[in-house]
């Protein structure tokens, strides 16, 4: 009968038994096949974003996001940064809101607004049209025209001192008178060209708008409200009076133009670049 050896057996000896636990050779063939499949799958499968960022792909990913992030920043900048020179879209609203604290300017703006009601003002700012009408009527009255020009100048320019635009308008009026037979378009163009660089087609585009065309479709009312709120927010002084006044005086053509540009349809706003 075989006797067990008297050799001492330690814990280390027992643990060394684990080295003798080995899988059969066939196991490694299956192992290699499975590993190859997983390796190919790993090469083909796109990894989630957190693993790509963890592997140092943060800056490339940020580079891919640069366009949308930049676009959002640009839009935010357009609406949040105060603009020294008013653009066509927000010019009247900015002018009205910025002159609310100045009594003289408020009076002038009100005068211009009252005078502009009968002229069906479209894309051209009301103060310049008022000045042009004064020229055409030849009412005795350079002082009247000058007064009109002086009165409207704060409303035309945004963020600039009122004296400079007024002086420009004064200089332009004699030239317009000299032209005599020129049309209202030319007068308006000469008046506005020095101050606001309006294009002549803007005044040519004015036409008689039929009452039915003035009706706003119900689906675009929301777009109008959103647009008004955006413009009022961009003015920096977003008092309710300014936005309401702007909404009431915003011409149909300009409103449609802005709605088209911002892509306001129904319940959403789609900004185009």
């Amino acid at each position, binding site marked *: *009968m*075989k*006797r*067990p*050896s008297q*050799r*001492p*057996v*330690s*814990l*280390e*000896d*027992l*643990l*060394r*038994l*684990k*080295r*003798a*636990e*080995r*899988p*059969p050779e066939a*196991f*490694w063939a*299956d*192992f*290699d096949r*499975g*590993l190859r499949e*997983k*390796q190919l799958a*790993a090469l083909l499968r796109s*990894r989630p974003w957190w693993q790509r960022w963890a*592997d*140092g792909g943060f800056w490339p990913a940020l580079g891919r996001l640069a366009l949308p992030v930049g676009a959002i920043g640009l839009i935010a900048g357009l609406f949040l940064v105060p603009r020294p020179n008013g653009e066509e879209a927000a010019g009247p609203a900015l002018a009205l809101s910025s002159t609310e604290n100045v009594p003289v300017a408020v009076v002038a703006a009100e005068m211009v607004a009252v005078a502009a009601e009968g002229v069906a003002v479209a894309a051209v700012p009301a103060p310049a049209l008022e000045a042009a009408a004064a020229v055409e009527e030849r009412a005795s009255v350079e002082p009247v025209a000058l007064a009109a020009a002086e009165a409207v100048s704060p409303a035309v320019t945004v963020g600039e001192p009122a004296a400079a635009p007024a002086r420009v308008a004064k200089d332009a009026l004699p030239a317009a008178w000299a032209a005599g037979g020129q049309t209202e378009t030319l007068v308006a163009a000469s008046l506005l060209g020095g101050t606001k660089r309006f294009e002549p087609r803007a005044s040519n585009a004015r036409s008689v708008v039929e009452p039915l065309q003035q009706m706003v479709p119900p689906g675009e009312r929301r777009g109008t409200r959103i647009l008004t709120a955006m413009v009022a927010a961009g003015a920096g002084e977003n008092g309710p009076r300014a936005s309401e006044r702007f909404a009431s005086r915003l011409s149909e053509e300009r409103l449609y133009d802005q709605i088209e540009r911002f892509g306001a349809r129904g319940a959403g706003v789609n900004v185009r670049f």
Partner: protein
Amino acid sequence: MVFRFAARGAAAFASAVIPAAKVLPQALIASPERRQEADADREIVLRVQAGEVAAFDALVLRYRERVYGVVYNLIGNREDAADLTQDCFIKAFRSIHRFQAQAAFFTWLYRIAVNSTLSQLRRQRLRSFLSLDQLDTEAPVAKEVIDALTDKSGADRATFAQELQEKLNDALQRLSIKHRTVVTLFEIDGLNHQEIAEVMECSEGTVRSRLHYAKQQLQAELAPYLRR
């Protein structure tokens, strides 16, 4: 053709530049054999990093049994161990561009294996069960121990060996995960304290302490099979 040329050029550039900058810390590698192995690994890794994907197979062939052994001894289930070993190599393959020769490749690979296994053990703590590989009783290591413990032969000897294997694995599974890891790496895989500390990202003192405690617990569990 162009890809091969580019890969060869990148490999040549890397081998010309990197050895001066990224010399392995020799103090971390204990034995000369391990050091030679680490140098050979580094060359293969550089080839893989240069775009020679097929060179990774050499690393798999070299380390698959050792990595499988670590994972198997930690988890005690051969099917799970096979899956985890494959996943470990996939992770290493994906991350090999981030591997820098601050440590030996096998240390880095062991770290991936151990961390993957520990994560798996934490996930399936309540549903783990043993599925053991066959114990080769004729292997010199096993034969000597079994001969010292029993005088049985034939089927009885095989039954005794199986019983001993189950008791041993059961005792190992009763250890905490960290203690089991230290025992596995030190006693079964033959890493030294410094290498284990690097793999487990802890101090050598912690490794020694865990090893001491784990051995105490194992001696209590396996007392019937010990002979002084």
